[in-house]
């Protein structure tokens, strides 16, 4: 819903007020997105049909298609706004860490906390990410790359503070941090891991990945 709020915010700064029609369109989109989120979470990506989504939103399939090209666009839209919100939460959390380990752990934890209670949606996203076309589209979302970038920034800060050596291969190490961050989601989806269990695991993973980069 963050997405919608932003668009409305922009329109207020314009000289002309948005037309009633434009506002109605925004509301329709928001209704469709809310219904789609619900159904992807309950029935998975494959299981949720446009027909079901339209019915849940209380409109015709034609009205849905007037706003979204297809199901994958709907899913991408939800993922985009979620990933942006989660990245903001992770960035703020990392800023509160005093050491590189702490900052990374806080960032991981903020991610897991965000998706807690939304595991069915995560499961749908993970499944989709393995398909060639849709996977590429998900990976191309800027927030995905920005998350790796966030980890890289934390490593760079660690180097600056003298916690990590200059030759700590930031690029490869941040990618590995991201791999491990993601690899814990299936544990939460299939193993029902709690937030505490995910945090404990993350703390250990971060330690192993950073071990070779410590100074001294």
């Amino acid at each position, binding site marked *: 819903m963050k997405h919608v709020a932003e668009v409305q915010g922009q329109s207020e700064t314009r000289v002309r007020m948005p037309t009633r029609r434009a506002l109605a369109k925004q509301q329709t989109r928001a209704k469709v997105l809310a219904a789609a989120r619900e159904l992807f979470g309950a029935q998975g990506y*494959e299981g949720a049909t446009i027909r079901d989504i339209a019915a849940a939103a209380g409109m015709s399939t034609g009205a849905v298609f007037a706003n979204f090209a297809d199901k994958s666009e709907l899913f991408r839209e939800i993922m985009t706004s979620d990933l942006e919100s989660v990245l903001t939460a992770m960035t703020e959390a990392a800023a509160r860490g005093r050491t590189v380990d702490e900052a990374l752990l806080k960032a991981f934890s903020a991610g897991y906390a965000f998706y807690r209670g939304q595991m069915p949606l995560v499961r749908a996203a993970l*499944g989709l990410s*393995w*398909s060639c076309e849709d*996977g590429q589209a998900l*990976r191309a979302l800027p927030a995905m790359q920005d998350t790796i970038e966030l980890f890289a920034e934390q490593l760079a800060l660690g180097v600056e503070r003298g916690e990590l050596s200059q030759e700590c291969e930031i690029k490869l190490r941040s990618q590995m941090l991201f791999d491990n961050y993601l*690899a814990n989601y299936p544990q939460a989806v299939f193993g029902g891991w709690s937030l505490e269990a995910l945090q404990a695991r993350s703390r250990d993973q971060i330690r*192993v*990945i950073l071990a070779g980069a410590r100074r001294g």
Partner: protein
Amino acid sequence: MNLRQTQKEATRRRVLDAARDLFETVGYEETTVREIASQAGVAVGSVFTCFASKAEVLSQVMIDRLEDLYAELDRITPHLRGTVVDRLSSIFALHYAFETRRTPLFLAHIAAAYNWRQGSDSVPYGRNPRLRGMIHDCVADGRTRGEVADDADIPLIVDTLMAAYAWNYRLAAWEQAGPEQMSAIMEKQIALVARGFAPSAAA
């Protein structure tokens, strides 16, 4: 084995062979049980006397494939030489080389693990106890040879390597990466983790 059991086993074999080829060429989602039966030259009912669902057929296809891989690995691993990094790299490289012989099938297996309509009888990818065991033994062996610090947390190191290994398959899914490319990245990742568990780093 009586005649009836022999026939049932033959049907099972034909269904699995047909399914493996169809999942690979047509795709898992796109293949119906009817098509599997027709390709195998058996009745649809016969498929269901052997398997409860299409998901179970896929799981069995993957289990059978792994047996071939492990027969291959059992022959090769006693001959592995070099540092713990070299040995680990070889084991992972053999897995990548094996799975990319049938990339679409492997990716179908991963995606199926996340599919709702799948019953709980399908085995999620990444649950590969044989590989995990091999990696564990390789690192433990490195410790006895003094290449791995005494206080290294071996199960944790294994987990970290397995996570990197599994997620590198994204390169095959998204960039059509071949086994060499995936193995090269894996080798770098192993070396990076190894710098953390080397005895000098702990000292």
